Structures are given as C-alpha cells and as structure tokens.
C-alpha cells in the first residue's frame, strides 16, 4: 500500500513546527500504524532525512505511551490506541495527517513526542490511598460487593494516555481525573480521603492549564479503555459536595 503522509515536525519544545509531506511506500496491509512509521523512518534514514520522533512502548494497547492524532482523531479511528490501529483500515493512496496530542498542558517536546507529566502531577496531588506497606489488614477483612469492585475496575482501567484531553475541544482532563477519583472513591479503602482527594486533584488539574468540561463527550469517544463520561458527573458531584463541606467549616 501507499500513503501520503503529512507529519508534524518540530525541532524542540520552543521551535515552531509545521507539517512535512512524505510518501510511505510498500506498506503491508497487516502492518500496524506504528510499524508503518517504522518503515517510513527507515526509508527516511536512507534518504538522509532525520527520522520522525514518536513515542511508543508496549505496542499492545495498555501502556498509554503512544500519542498520535491521526486525521484529527487522537489514536485514529476506532476504539484503541495508535498501536492497535492497522493499515488495512486505510484506503490505498490515502492522505493521512499525523499530529501530536495537542493541549497547552501537554507541550510538544519534539515532532510527535509530547510531555504528559501534568497527569503525573495530578495523581501526585491525591490519586492514591495513604497506607503503609506492612500495615494492611487481611485482604478479605473488608468485603466489597462485586458491583462496586467492577465499577471501580471500569474506572481503574484508564491507561493515562491523554487522548481524552487531546480530543476535547477544550483540552479538558476531566475524564482522566474523574476515572481516578471514581476508582478510589468507590472503594471502602478510599473513602477516608475522598473529599481531600477530589479537591486536591481538581485544583491541580486546573493549575496544569487543562480546559473546562463542556459535556461534549469527545473524551469518552476516543478513550481506548472505554472509561465512561458519567464518571465526570460523579466527580462534579463529589467536588461540589467536598467544597460545600469545606465552606461550612468542616474538616476534609
């Protein structure tokens, strides 16, 4: 197969970038999108053009490293990460535009490589349960209903790739943050810190420069882990409840 690529090239974080055009030739239909880029890179190296820098690691859809926006859709068409997208889903001769995930909070480092450490800082603000290794009670000491455990798992499935913020017209990270708030907030172990957690995480999210939620639901449409946007609603509720508690002088 043959494709016309328009690829975002940017030397450094501060340098201006632009789309460069390349032709990808002799691409097997069974190749994944990232393997197509591998082939293009080796062709570019042969032509003395610096290869396109892009992030990827596990290449099986779970690590959340890949961060390409393909024809305006983070991770491209269909559910799943970029590494799970195969060239047979494109038309021969098609023009494909490849850009990095875009958000002010995800600055481009080079070409298609972005810095998503904002997500790490949001987790550091409260995305954990404070416990001490060695002090845990027996794992069966607190029964957790299957329904709650399953729901927590739905939220915990988030792979932290950032496609939600990249797809949102406002670059809002609400789906990511709400997934963690929901996962920990649902479980009995996470209840003691529930209010602190949601307050700290949301304020950190705002500080990182993500936009606000306009209930567009583009986030859940691109989420490779299938995290539903209803968790955002849940977080809205928990955040306002925690804020009210704080306003009336209760400790959280």
């Amino acid at each position, binding site marked *: 197969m043959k494709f016309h690529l*328009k690829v*975002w090239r940017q030397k450094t974080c501060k340098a201006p970038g632009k*789309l460069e055009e390349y032709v990808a030739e002799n691409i097997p239909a069974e190749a994944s999108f990232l393997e197509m880029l591998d082939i293009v890179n080796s062709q570019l190296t042969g032509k003395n053009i610096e290869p396109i820098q892009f992030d990827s690691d596990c290449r099986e859809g779970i690590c959340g490293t890949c961060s390409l*926006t393909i*024809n*305006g*859709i983070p991770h491209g068409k269909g559910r799943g990460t970029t590494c799970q997208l195969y060239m047979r889903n494109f038309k021969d001769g098609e023009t494909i*535009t490849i*850009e990095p995930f*875009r*958000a*002010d*909070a995800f600055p*481009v480092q080079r070409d298609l490589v972005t810095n998503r450490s904002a997500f790490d800082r949001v987790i550091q603000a409260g995305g954990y349960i*404070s*416990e*001490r290794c060695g002090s845990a009670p027996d794992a069966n000491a607190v029964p957790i209903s299957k329904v709650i455990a399953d729901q927590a798992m739905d939220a915990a499935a988030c792979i932290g790739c950032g496609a939600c913020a990249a*797809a949102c*017209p*406002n*670059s*809002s990270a*609400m789906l990511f943050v709400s997934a963690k708030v929901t996962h920990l907030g649902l479980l009995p172990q996470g209840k003691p810190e529930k209010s*602190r957690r949601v*307050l*700290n995480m*949301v*304020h950190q*999210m*705002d500080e990182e*420069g*993500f*936009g*606000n*939620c*306009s*209930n*567009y*639901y*583009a986030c859940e*449409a*691109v989420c490779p882990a299938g995290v*539903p*946007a*209803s968790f*955002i*609603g*849940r*977080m*809205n*509720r*928990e*955040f*306002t409840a925690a*804020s*009210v508690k*704080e*306003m009336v002088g209760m*400790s*959280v």
Partner: protein
Amino acid sequence: MITSSSSSVRTGPCPAHLWIFSSIGKKTIVALTGIALILFVIGHLLGNFSIYLGPDAMNLYAEKLHDLGPILWVIRLGLIAVVVLHIYFTMLLWKENRTARPQKYIASDPIKTTVFARTMRLSGLIVLAFVIFHLAHFTVRVVDPSFQEMHTLLDGRRVHDVYAMVIKGFSSAPVVIVYVVGLFLLTFHLSHGIASLFQTFGITNSRIRRNYECAARVLAWALFAGYVSIPIAVLVFGLGKGVGQ
C-alpha cells in the same frame, strides 16, 4: 511514615472562592443560573398561553404582574443578575478553554460532539440579542412606538392593552421571522443545556444519560412549539383578528 494526613484541615485561600473559580465551580454556576433561566422560560410561556383565553385574560395577567410593583423590580433585577452571571462565567470558561489549546489541530474532526454543544456560545449570544429585541419590542416598546398608546378598560380600570399589542406585533411577517429564528436558537441552546445540567450536577450514569438527553430535547422542542404557536397563530391563523379594533 505518612505525614500528609497529619493536618486534617486544608489550609489556603477561602474555600468559597476556590470553589467558585475552579473549573467545576464555574461550570456549576453556569448550570445553576441556567436552571433559573429555564424556570423563567417555562413560567413565561405559561403566562403567554393566557392569550388563548382572550383579551381580558391576558390583560388581567399583565396587570397582576404590574401590580407587584417593587417585587416585580426585584424579580427583573434578579433575572438580569442571573443573565449577567450566566454570561460572565461562560466567558471565563471560554477564555480558559481557548488558552488550553493554543495550537489547534490542522486536520480536525468533530468527534462525537453535537452541533448543539458546539454552538452553545453562538446560540447563546443570538438568544441574548433576541431577548434584547423582545424587550425593546414588548416591554420598553421602542420598536413600534404606537404600542405605548394602546389602552383598554379592564374591570373599569384603564390598563395597557397587552393583547392588542401582541396581536399587532405579530401581524408583521418580518417580526415573526425574528421570533421564530430567535426561539429556534433558544431551543438549540436548551437541548444541550438542559441535558448538561444532569451531568454537571452529577445526576447521571451511563444508562440514564440517554434518557435525560432525550427528555431534554423533548422539553426544548416543546417549549419551542409553545412559544412559536402564538406568532404563528396570529400571523397565519388570524388569532385575535377584529378584537379591540
């Protein structure tokens, strides 16, 4: 050693201020003011329906409202404040949302977002312009100064003839077009706005979302039908023709 939990009170700026200017706080204020405006829109429509009960009913309703005196002004100022807050916080959100993505995508795709959701600001601003026109038309009565002079007798009192004014106002096709367009955009605005309330207040899960999204659309279009029925009834079906002339 776990130290972060040592202080149970979070310290920092005033909690109310933190909430109001947080992303979720701003959003919630837009939603709360939105609820007030939706209630107003529903109430206004119920009042409008008095037109179908004849001139006296409508004029009586108008006069009762006027008799509220200072309370009416409190309501009016309240509504203005609600509108101002609704718009002010929307603009704050809008400004932040723009800076959250300084470099736009070159190839863009709407990804699931509905046209209603994407046009909230535009539809809102047009509705605002329409409301200003509507106020100028029927409340301040500067669009057609002759409205100032319309009076009638109600239970022996000389009152403003609202009924005649509405009939006259809607007898002009261009005016009716402005109303239909304005109300259509209001419907646009509400079909996303009403559904969004549930999400913003967190009254949601994956299963009920489809239901309230549908209900929101039905309500928005029902309001549209109710409001538009009056100018159409006047212009097309000749409601009120010959009355009071």
